[in-house]
């Protein structure tokens, strides 16, 4: 099971740019060439369903897009990079709705 740490809040009340997490990859080296081909939007049904579920939970006010992003970013880096893209979404979604696997 992936453990996502509680979101730490800076004492000044989140007034300053925070540290970088695994998602903040702009400029990094080492990720290699782009995936081959045009790349389908979704490779499996569960990916599309995860995508739509997240939209629906945000629209229903269960959490904000920022809470979703913040949760996904706190997946520990080694696990984060090992996960397929939409598994990160799924992991964050489960965490936010209290349904951890």
């Amino acid at each position: 099971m992936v453990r996502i740490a509680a979101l730490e809040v800076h004492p000044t009340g989140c007034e300053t740019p925070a540290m970088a997490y695994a998602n903040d990859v702009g400029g990094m080296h080492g990720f290699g060439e782009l995936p081959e081909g045009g790349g389908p939007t979704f490779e499996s049904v569960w990916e599309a369903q995860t995508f739509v579920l997240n939209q629906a939970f945000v629209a229903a006010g269960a959490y904000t897009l920022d809470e979703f992003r913040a949760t996904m970013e706190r997946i520990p880096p080694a696990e984060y990079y090992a996960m397929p893209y939409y598994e990160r979404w799924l992991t964050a979604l489960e965490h936010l709705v209290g349904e951890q696997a």
Partner: protein
Amino acid sequence: MSGSGHHRNGELQARVNRLLDLAEARGVITRPEVDARIEAFGDRVTARNGAEMVVRAWSSPEYRDRLLADAGAAAAELGHQGGGYSSDIRLHAVANTPGVHNVVVCTLCSCYPLAWLGPPPAWYKSEAYRSRVVRDPRSVLAEFGLVLPDTTEVRVWDASAEARYLVVPERPEGAGALSEAEQLDLVTRDCLIGTAVPTLPARIGRTA
């Protein structure tokens, strides 16, 4: 390898099934609604919407001005409402010119004008694209087969807040003679992201 991938998909599907049940039980969304939205991504909410906006801008300078001033309103004129996650998400169009080429990325996650164009392609979400296109855009564009002259300025747009970017490519020379449907086919999804430019098929391209 494919066997373990298959097994993994089954496990992930089972996790999603639990969430689908939970969402239905909490009144968030029903399964038929989930299916309908997925269908819309193959059908109504696609890159074709962006192509329509671009082709209209090619033929109408007034529409082009409106598109560059307020892309969300210009999209709505053609029936593409956007919406989705949050009213903070707004569409912005950036135009290529003879000396400027634009390309879009989201380095912090994978923000994309999905409410207008559908979800992004797999490569757009990859760390390979997101890490490198801000540092070395020309090598990324070259991987797409797009080699720009040294004199062209590359402008990378990193969608780090809730602005969503759409590139308005230039109309290739000779495309004015094509039908609207043929012009729409020139404006691919990658043209709207900026990793490609519209190219005329050889039979109607400039020939000697």
